[in-house]
């Protein structure tokens, strides 16, 4: 196993460790979860019972140590709100978020790269200018507003697509997916597009900038001089060279797609895990917050590793460096 991999792993562990301490201290500063959980008509006796049941009567360092002890056995705690293992609650919702984030990612690549390529190759054409103007809109319009407008237009006015929810699902390997059914796909279109809009714009602009930078380079001129077809020049020489920054950004953005899909999930009533973190913070559900963030740290670390790996595939110079 290469040294940098171990280094990465160690770094991730350190982040998780620091994060758990911050969450523990942070939550205890905000307030007492028992005060949120106790039903309004319950009395002090009931409140006290809840405090004891949650172990909140213990000093914070004791609570933290017992958390660490359990975490080492793979138990990230039981959600205060759901009364179920926090990890289980999150994993139940993960497929929905993954499905949404992947769809958005595919849309971002499918629309973003060709459009950006076109805009980069013909920077002064009318269509290119429209694409660029459109990408500014995609950047600057708030997600929730666009989402609502989509619902109003496609669901309320035109009645073409459902206004929200996940639709029909099928079980594959014990996990429910909606992209495998026609009804599920219909439900997926709007939220995926909504979530992808920002990313599409991002990819368009990155691609265009890359193309504009690469086109005047000597090796493109040389390729032309060699008599290569325009098609081959673009698909091999241009595209391969502009992909590195795009992959870096897409990789990082994918992490944030998963971690912070909350706005889209809320507007489209998508049963993913994005909303879970917000609800958990509002109800001071500490085990959920910790478990969620642990998962997110693992995500980001993994994505970074994949991105690094893709570099070596795309860029021979990186391969040479690590080899030598």
């Amino acid at each position, binding site marked *: 196993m290469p040294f940098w991999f171990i280094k990465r792993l160690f770094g991730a562990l350190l982040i998780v460790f620091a994060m758990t301490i911050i969450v523990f201290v942070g939550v205890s500063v*905000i*307030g*007492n979860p028992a*005060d*949120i*959980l*106790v*039903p*309004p*008509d*319950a*009395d*002090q*006796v*009931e409140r*006290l*019972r*809840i405090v004891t*049941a*949650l172990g909140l009567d213990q000093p914070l360092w004791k609570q933290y140590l017992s958390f660490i002890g359990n975490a080492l056995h793979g138990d990230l705690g039981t959600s*205060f*709100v*759901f*009364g*179920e293992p926090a990890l289980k*609650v999150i994993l*139940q*919702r993960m497929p*929905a978020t993954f499905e949404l984030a992947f769809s958005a990612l595919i849309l971002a690549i499918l629309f973003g790269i060709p459009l950006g390529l076109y805009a980069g190759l013909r920077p002064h054409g009318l269509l290119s200018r429209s694409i660029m103007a459109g990408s500014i809109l995609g950047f600057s319009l708030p997600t*929730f*507003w666009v*989402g*609502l*407008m989509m*619902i*109003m*237009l496609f*669901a*309320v*006015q*035109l*009645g073409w697509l*459902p*206004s*929200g*929810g*996940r639709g029909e699902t099928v079980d594959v390997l014990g996990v*429910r997916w909606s992209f495998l059914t026609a009804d599920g796909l219909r439900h997926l279109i709007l939220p995926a597009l909504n979530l992808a809009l920002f990313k599409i714009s991002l990819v368009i602009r990155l691609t265009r900038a890359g193309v504009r930078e690469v086109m005047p380079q000597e090796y493109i001129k040389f390729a032309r001089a060699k008599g290569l077809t325009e098609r081959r020049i673009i698909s091999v020489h241009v595209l391969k060279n502009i992909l590195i920054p795009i992959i870096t950004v897409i990789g990082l953005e994918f992490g944030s797609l998963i971690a912070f899909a909350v706005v889209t999930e*809320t*507007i*489209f*009533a998508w*049963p*993913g895990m994005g*909303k*879970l973190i917000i609800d958990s*913070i*509002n*109800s*001071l559900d500490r085990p959920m917050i910790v478990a969620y963030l642990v998962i997110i740290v693992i995500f980001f670390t993994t994505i970074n590793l994949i991105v690094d790996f893709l570099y070596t595939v795309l860029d021979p110079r990186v391969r040479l460096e690590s080899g030598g």
Partner: protein
Amino acid sequence: MTIRLQAALALGCLLAAAGLTQSVTPALAEDLTVAIKAPITGADPHLLYSPNRNMQLHVYEALVAQDNNLRPVPDLATSWKVINPTTWEFQLRDDVKFQDGTPLTPEDVIFSIHRAQTIEGVRTFHAYVADVASVEASGDHAVRITTKVPSPELPANLATIAIVAKHAVEGASSDDFNGGPAAIGTGPYRWVRWTPGQDVTLERSDTYRGDPAPWDHVKFRFITDDSARTAALLSGDVDVADAIPASLFQRVNNSGRAKIVSGTSVFLHYMTIDRRDNPPFVTDIDGKPVTKNPFNDLKVRQAVTHAINRDGLAERIMGGGAEPAGQFTPDGFDGHNPDLLPASYDPDQSRKLLEEAGYPDGFGLTIHCLNDRFTGDVQTCQAIAQMLTAVGIHTKVETMPSSVFWSKATGENPQFSSYLAIFGSAAGLSSNALDVLAAKWDPVAGTGRNNAGGYDNPELNALIKKATSTVDDDQRQELLQQAAKTAIDDVAIVPIFFLKGAWGVRDGLTLKPRGDMYTMATNIEPAAE
């Protein structure tokens, strides 16, 4: 807040701009889809969380049911009688079958109450059955319940305890309640499946003893965003949507597809008053701490209550989504005193009262409010501050989310002087409101949990105590009304308004509102032609 507001505006504009010509595809008459705001967190009926109970009420019944005003009415028990102040006998119906076909027996009742008392969990129904000492069968269709102390509100409390099938639930896991072997009730619907964060599906039960439910399937979809929930209604994706904010009432009513149905709820928006010697957020007119708490003068408290324009708040700020309150429970509910009207809006009277109390220039106050409790909470808070300032009580506003608010507002040493919040009793009991809001803070007896101002009125405390131990219903109601009057006359708290539940209901359906804002499929029917 801003997001919510902007979203509502955006929705409004677009709806207004586009001519509403689209016709709705009518949903299948046999299936009902309901959009609800609050996602549920579990399926076990003995773990308490209000939205969960809304779902479970379709599946599981209790000895006693609640009518739409939350008053106890016979359900699995046809009648009950008090044998002596601590012994009750409940006669069970003899025609009740669980959804697997087995008949209901006293054993199931004993098991259910015992389970509710002993189940481990964060949120439980322990408090509702804390008085119960023992339950035993007294015949094939009767149970006898012994209480530790005289417990006249036992029937109302038992309305919260779902009766489950002993043979199915013994040793069951939480997953077994989610459509599994333990999900067997006696109610009109069967629990098919709960998908966390997404929906709950119910199905008509064939073993129900009463008239079969009007719907083959009922699907409750969780749509937390107000605008999205309304859009789902207007697009015809759902038949009913709950918790429609007042700002969208007109859009729904003008859509030509749905109408708003609203009803007063038991949820009271109230303001507390600090009666301690060193109120932390009361200052003199120059902003310096006070040496004497002005609120200890009844005239000052009356000045506060007359300074608030309740009609204006309910109609303007809340857009008709609230009803002015003058006491702890609304008309038609437990303990309502018909003589107590909402205090009149009379700023001149308030100024006069302040002057008589020796505060001609007024004084300073900071009120603390929640900003995540209901649509319009912050605006209500700001409006009240302005109304108080207008009569001379120079009021500042601080708002915060529940997670920060409650730990500071209540407890051993409350940190606010006046706060605004919501109170609602699941059992619909006014004694509960009196106990939590106005009775003396006493952690051992469990009274005065939200009485953060240190209010202590021995006459009121005695009245509440007497009311909650008086078994005779009429006499108890009289005592509760008397207690409400004593508390309100002394301005123990300042009642502001009762929230109204508001549902958007597709044309062709009728809905009867329930006092706890629950959306009951049993209250939704196809409209008569």
